């Protein structure tokens, strides 16, 4: 009774929702998946963090909001030498830090030195390995940073020298590991290579992006506001962005439905059909640069036999999985690198072919699956991974008469098992760090840290190395084609589907273009109320 009275007292009317207020005041409310591990661009590694960092910092180049091609950022122009190894950037005079200091070429040198300092232990330091001597400095082989390929000429010219011509170098610059930090702020709170100082706190942090940090309460929200000193501030329409780390995807969907947030990070699997049928204008399935695959431990018999691996790959009905299990517009994968990765689409592909798979298995000594040992399929605990594994378990059993045992492990345990090679087949996914086939193909080099299949092929290694040195784009892609053909012929990894990014988006959000890396430069995003937003609320 008392509860009812309190509730009734309150219930005298509907409140103004975040979305209505946001549309009026140009404040974007975004579900951000999970609490960021930090906002130091040289320390953090995740997508969640990257989504926040793009608001706060700007690198030498920035991204076109539609196709992400590199556009001038802090650098207004640049020249590339003929051998593709030297880049000269001309910084704009009016680029400012949020405290008013000019952004100088020396700030970039300091920043590169910081992330490459061994003491900082930056996990993404390897993104700077294309720099001449970048790897040597990071691994402690040289101590003198002046030997690293970056120097300045005056305050506004930055010259970068690379180990190899790196055709995707400008795309690479859009990764947070290449972004500048404000040297006096870093020094104020600690040494250049000191991890975890409070320099990223509200009130301490100095940034150079379109937004600055306004407020940050752990597990509640992180708020950025428009930076009036940003060189392109007149183009920025949003006044604030509120990142809400809602880690329950069901809670996030409820928040969206009640007008609490404009954008979600993802959609619960069981709500996809509802939105598809009833509110298709609110749901988006954008291609995303990532591949979901099964990793095979080639050191385990009989998986060391490529005929067995091919037979397994050929008997997964990917259309059925994407259409009936995932339902989110994912594309079946018959090669490893996602299609149209910066213009590259693999030509080699295999087919769903049960007959051929049975022949291959028979050739390998298991006619009709007889004598084939039970396989273990490992995945990290998740509803979606389980559903896919169950479907594939059944497909392999029906097509090849192979018994599969499913094993699920909690995330960190799963990581330990995979790293130690303590698995037979494991679920895996790879999201490109930058828009180039290299990020997908160089991981399968012999002994590569992310290879973990035990697979090694010298011919493959040679093609990847040749591609790294090639200057001509077509020649380079030709090497990648050859390498990928070997990969698909040997099948140490079984591609299953290409990712999409699913999200719910309010119609008032403008300028949120589908991009392959799911990057959305916030300076091009704006809000315009169009329809009765409460309409969302009454509909269930």
């Amino acid at each position, binding site marked *: 009774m*008392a*509860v009812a009275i*309190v*509730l009734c007292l*309150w*219930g005298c009317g*509907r*409140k103004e929702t975040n979305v209505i207020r946001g549309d009026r005041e140009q404040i974007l409310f975004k579900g951000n998946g999970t*609490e960021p*591990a*930090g906002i*130091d661009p040289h*320390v*953090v*590694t995740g997508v969640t963090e990257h989504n926040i960092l793009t608001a706060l910092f700007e690198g030498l180049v920035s991204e076109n909001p539609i196709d992400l091609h590199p556009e001038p950022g802090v650098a207004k122009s640049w020249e590339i030498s003929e051998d593709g190894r030297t880049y000269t950037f001309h910084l704009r005079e009016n680029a400012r830090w949020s405290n008013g200091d000019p952004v100088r070429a020396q700030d970039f040198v300091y920043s590169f030195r910081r992330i490459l300092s*061994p*003491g*900082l*232990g*930056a*996990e993404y*330091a*390897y993104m700077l390995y294309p720099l001449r001597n970048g790897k040597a400095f*990071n*691994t*402690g082989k040289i101590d003198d940073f002046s030997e690293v390929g970056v120097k300045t000429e005056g305050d506004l010219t930055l010259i970068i020298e690379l180990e190899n011509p790196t055709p995707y170098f400008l795309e690479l610059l859009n990764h947070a590991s290449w972004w500048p930090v404000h040297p006096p702020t870093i020094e104020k709170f600690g040494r250049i290579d000191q*991890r*975890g*100082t*409070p320099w*990223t706190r509200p009130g301490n942090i100095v940034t150079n992006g379109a937004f600055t940090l306004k407020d940050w*309460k*752990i*597990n*509640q929200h992180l708020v950025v506001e428009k930076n009036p000193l940003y060189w392109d501030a007149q183009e920025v329409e949003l006044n604030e962005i509120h990142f*809400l780390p*809602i880690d*329950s995807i*069901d*809670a996030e969907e*409820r*928040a969206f*439905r*009640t007008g*609490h947030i404009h954008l979600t990070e993802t959609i619960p699997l069981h709500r996809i059909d509802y939105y598809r049928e009833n509110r298709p204008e609110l749901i988006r399935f954008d291609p995303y640069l990532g591949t979901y695959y099964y990793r095979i431990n080639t050191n385990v018999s009989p998986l060391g036999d490529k005929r067995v691996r091919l037979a397994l790959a050929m008997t997964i009905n990917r259309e059925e999985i994407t259409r009936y299990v995932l339902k989110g517009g994912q594309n079946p994968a018959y090669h490893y690198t996602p299609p149209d990765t910066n213009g590259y689409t693999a030509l080699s592909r295999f087919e769903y072919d049960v007959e051929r798979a049975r022949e291959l298995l028979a050739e390998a000594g298991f006619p009709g699956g007889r004598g084939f040992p039970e396989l273990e399929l490992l995945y990290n605990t998740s509803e979606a991974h389980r559903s896919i594994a169950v479907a594939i378990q059944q497909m392999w059993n029906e097509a090849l008469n192979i018994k599969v045992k499913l094993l699920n492990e*909690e*995330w*960190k*345990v799963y*990581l*330990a*098992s995979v*790293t130690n090679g303590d698995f037979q087949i494991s679920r895996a*996914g790879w999201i490109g760090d930058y828009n180039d086939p290299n990020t997908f193909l160089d991981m399968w080099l012999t002994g590569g*840290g*992310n290879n*973990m299949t035990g697979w090694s092929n010298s011919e493959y290694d040679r093609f990847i190395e040749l591609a790294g040195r090639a200057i001509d784009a077509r020649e380079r892609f030709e090497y990648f084609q050859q390498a990928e053909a070997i990969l698909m012929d040997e099948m140490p990894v079984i591609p299953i589907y290409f990712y999409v990014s699913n999200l719910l988006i309010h119609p008032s959000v403008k300028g949120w273009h589908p991009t392959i890396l799911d990057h959305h430069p916030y300076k091009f995003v704006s809000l315009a109320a169009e329809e009765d937003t*409460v309409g969302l*609320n009454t509909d*269930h």
Partner: protein
Amino acid sequence: MLKFICIRILQTIPVLLIIATLTFFMVRLAPGDPISNEKTVPPEIRANLEAFYGFDDSLWVQYLRYMGNLLHGDLGPSYKYVGWSVNELIAQSFPVSLELGIYAFIIALLLGTAAGVVAALKKNSLADYVPMSFAMAGICLPTFVMGPMLVLVFAMWLGWFNPLGWTYWYDRVLPALTLGLYYSAYIARLSRGGMLEILSQDFIRTARAKGLPEKIVVLRHAIKGGLLPVISFMGPAFAGLISGSFVVETIFFIPGLGRFFIMAAFNRDYTMILGTVLFYATLIIILNLVVDVLLVLLNPRMSFD
């Protein structure tokens, strides 16, 4: 009494030491570590990172270092949330759990005792069956069902509240209800049982025989004894409520300590696990002490010896 309290506090120190030691070594036994990530980093970088966190020292050295810092009250840096110390994270999030817990406790106590007492007085009538059926349902309905149901009705259909968040004062209502209703169901059953037992006793019959009005019989004589089971339940209930509920905090997206406690284990955030365990241990020890003192003060048959 002072002696009793001093001895109990002194006993706390070895208990906490044992908890710290056991937790320290147990979390290290779990597979995985705070550094591991989907993308494996080159071995040189991993070595740099291990050096930074001191993982390259032997476990004993790490243990002694941790205990040394602990003596100064320093719980160390969080491995997951770079730039935040465990002390800061607990200081930020515990007050939120405490606030939510206090509201829930008040709701549980008021609703629970009222329903229980009424049910006992009107035994085997509608006023008994209806609240007790609700109480039964309340015990059976876990918070992860109750929470979304309240959200559905009051946030989705009626639009009176936000479905989640902890920004405005009214954001407290639904989570406090979710948590409070669950405990109020227990309290209702406890107080009904306690009251029924008391009401059947001789002294109550005597009071009625003397012609005292029912109101006085109940409020002056019965309720004192009838609610004793509720009072001994209050200690653990209060501890449970203020230590933060992972489920409620996740459903309603509340920045409390319960979420950190669970997530720290998933993240293998060693210092955060240790910090929260020690904090909870201390909290529970203190609360138990307070309840013990209160029980003695309330019950003349007990003493501090």
